């Protein structure tokens, strides 16, 4: 039952094409999310179209349980899993530089190794640079952290790796955007951008068309959206904390650590709590997810990113709790090591899903507006 004999880059894309041909002949799921209306605007599916649709899919699972043709039916329609595989394939295909693409192959292992190296590196460096009494001393004043690592060195190292991550992710995004064949101008058109910010910010399409995710069974719930909000907004709060602290440092000349009632600590703590609850909840949901929906081969990638976020928060909060003790030096090294690894692996892990999906949502908003104009004309 090969509906299409077009040539595709991978078997997964060929399967995605077959499924979209089935779905486009049915269309019962068009009210569930963005994928199916986007599909309906097309009659045939090139690789770029399929990569776009795959990244538009939030994996809520509703279309699997609503489908009269899902397995064991002979049509064997499993859209969530097929698109999940295609999605993860696309992360690898668009990785920059190309030489690092294999990091996606055994991503869990790669990320763990890089994280371990990061932590070990900081501990060794701290130990090499400092006497025992500095490393295991108690530092109470402003600038206490910089007793262990000069601020400028820290800023340079982390600014550098962050910049690198942003460039690498940006290059990936560029490749994705070219592949799906959308003009660059769409990414800066205010209306689609605003729509996408809204849709992404609310995770509008992670709700099975209104009832919630069908993750563990055909019984919907809204847990994944809740935990994802904790994670995303937790991450943003932590990011905000870092930005405020940077401003404090350079504009006000105030050095970390800050008092616990001060803005960077408040933001960081709130964000940190989100980054504990969120990733833990998402991880639990991932492990309980019906196996038939899961891209088993990429489980490591999903888990690695969640664990890294969780560890970033855990080590940060631990540092906060014990920053006035003799353990501070070691805790700082561990935290910095984890954060460094998080940044460095961002372009080579699950982090990129957010950007590609956001870009896909921008394009979707643009397409829908255009489609609406056509229909009205």
């Amino acid at each position, binding site marked *: 039952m090969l509906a299409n004999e077009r040539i595709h880059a991978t078997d997964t894309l060929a399967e995605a094409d077959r499924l979209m041909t089935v779905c486009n*002949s*049915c269309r*019962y*799921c*068009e009210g569930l999310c963005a994928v199916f209306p986007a599909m309906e605007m097309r009659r045939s599916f090139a690789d770029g179209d399929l990569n776009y649709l795959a990244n538009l899919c939030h994996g809520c699972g*509703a279309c699997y349980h609503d489908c009269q043709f899902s397995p064991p039916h*002979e049509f064997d329609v499993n859209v969530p899993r097929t698109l999940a595989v295609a999605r993860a394939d696309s992360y690898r295909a668009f990785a920059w530089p190309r030489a690092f693409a294999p990091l996606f192959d055994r991503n869990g292992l790669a990320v763990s190794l890089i994280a371990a190296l990061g932590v070990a590196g900081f501990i060794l460096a701290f130990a090499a640079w400092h006497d025992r009494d500095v490393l295991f001393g108690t530092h109470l004043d402003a600038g206490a952290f910089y007793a262990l690592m000069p601020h400028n060195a820290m800023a340079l190292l982390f600014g550098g790796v962050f910049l690198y991550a942003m460039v690498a992710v940006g290059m990936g995004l560029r490749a994705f955007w070219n592949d799906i064949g959308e003009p660059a101008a769409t990414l800066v058109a205010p209306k689609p951008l605003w729509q996408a910010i809204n849709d992404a910010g609310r995770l509008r399409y992670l709700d099975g068309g*209104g009832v919630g995710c069908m993750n563990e069974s*055909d019984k919907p719930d809204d847990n994944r959206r809740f935990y994802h909000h904790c994670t995303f907004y937790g991450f943003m709060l932590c990011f905000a904390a870092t930005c405020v602290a940077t401003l404090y440092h350079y504009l006000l000349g105030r050095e970390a650590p800050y008092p616990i009632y001060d803005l960077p600590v408040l933001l960081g703590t709130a964000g940190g709590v989100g980054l504990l609850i969120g990733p833990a909840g998402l991880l639990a949901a991932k492990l309980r997810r019906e196996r038939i929906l899961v891209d088993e081969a990429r489980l490591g990638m999903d888990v690695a990113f969640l664990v890294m976020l969780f560890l970033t928060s855990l080590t940060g909060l631990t540092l906060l709790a014990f920053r006035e003790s003799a353990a501070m030096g070691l805790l700082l090294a561990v935290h910095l090591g984890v954060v460094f690894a998080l940044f460095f692996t961002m372009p080579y892990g699950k982090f990129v899903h957010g950007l590609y999906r956001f870009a896909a949502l921008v394009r979707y908003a643009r397409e829908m507006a255009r489609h609406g104009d056509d229909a009205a004309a």
Partner: protein
Amino acid sequence: MAARENGAESGPRGPYDVLVIGGGNAALCAAISASRDGARVLVLEAAPRFYRGGNTRHTRNMRCAHDTATEILTGPYTEDEFFDDLLRVTGGQTDEELARHMIHESKDMLNWIVEQGVRFQPSLGGTLSLGRTNSFFLGGGRSMLNELYRTAEGLGVEVAYDSEVVALDIDDGTFRAATVRRGDALVRIEARALVAAAGGFEANIDWLKEGWGEVAENFLIRGTPYNRGTVLKMLMAAGVETIGDPTQCHAVAIDARAPKFDGGIITRLDCVVFGIVVNNRCERFYDEGEDIWPKRYAIWGRLVAAQPDQIAYIIFDARSLELFMPSLFPPISGASIAELAGKLGLDAEKLTATVEGFNAAVQPGTFDDKTLDDCRTVGLSPPKTHWARRIETAPFYAYPVRPGITFTYLATRIDREARMRMADGRPARNMFAAGEIMAGNVLGRGYAAGIGMTIGSVFGRIAGREAASNARQ
């Protein structure tokens, strides 16, 4: 509960107030309504859990009367208009009292079914012509069913899958018990009232042959393989009155490459109006442009069934390729009509002659697929009265089609309370019917899109209520 759903270890244990046979829309509406009226209800579904709700799994919408536009319906659809539509499609072969009763009750169905958890959306892409009359299920029929099952189970309705009813104990219009096959075991289950909602007999090729003859061998069954009409046959044997003609059914022309059973909606083809349709002798046999497609699609199953070997070919050219909803299988194509004929196994000379004859008869006109346009043939028999354009732009395309049977109409006779009537004219004491199994009361022939679900929901709700009340007596 879980064990009950899955296997035969801990089967259902009576006594029940209401036994519902079937697991589709009609059955679940009956079970929910009986349960809401306080009855202890058991649902027996022959299919495994995944295939529960036979044909309902494949549906997308239902037709209900409403006096004003709603969020999802673009305008009012009055009871009178609904009835007029029904009269027209059935050619008057409907029980007017029952039909008007159903249409009246359909109004409240839009509320009631939503209260049971079913969600609606505006009409699907490519089906705009139904936006005023039909409410579409968000996520389709299986999603709708999932909600009904969740609601029913929440109310305490027991559901047993893999549980085919193989015998009924009926004594002089009084139901006593059903025999169920569960694994290797036969189990007798007693109940105070029965709701039969086990569908038609469309998947029973032997029974279809009784009416149609050998040609039924070539029919494709669009929906569930589980609707074999066994319950209908047992009821007939127990003296229940029937209504309707066993050859009447909803039949459309679907892609001949579709599986024998359960291919569902995606094998349908909406391109007849854009081309010509020939049989395997390369002869046209009906006006392809008689009326807009939503009003004509349901006659093509019977038309193709009347052709030699029950097969036909829709032939069109490149200009029409993207004018209709995509379908599962790609069209067969050829650079010339002769090449296309070769791929279809048709006589190339004959097909070329038929196409040329058609092309020569096409009159100039302004093509418009949204209206009954003026593109027609002259001097051709049968004529093509609208959308006739020359088939001349390569590549040329074809879809092979066969009759696709949706569901049969032969029915148990019922009254306003959905109570079965016995052949001697007396009402059955405690037996009710809903859905396909009684569709023939309303549908003597013909079809109006979305009415299958209306019949199931409305009479299901009534049957459940009446069965519960009956069980209390």
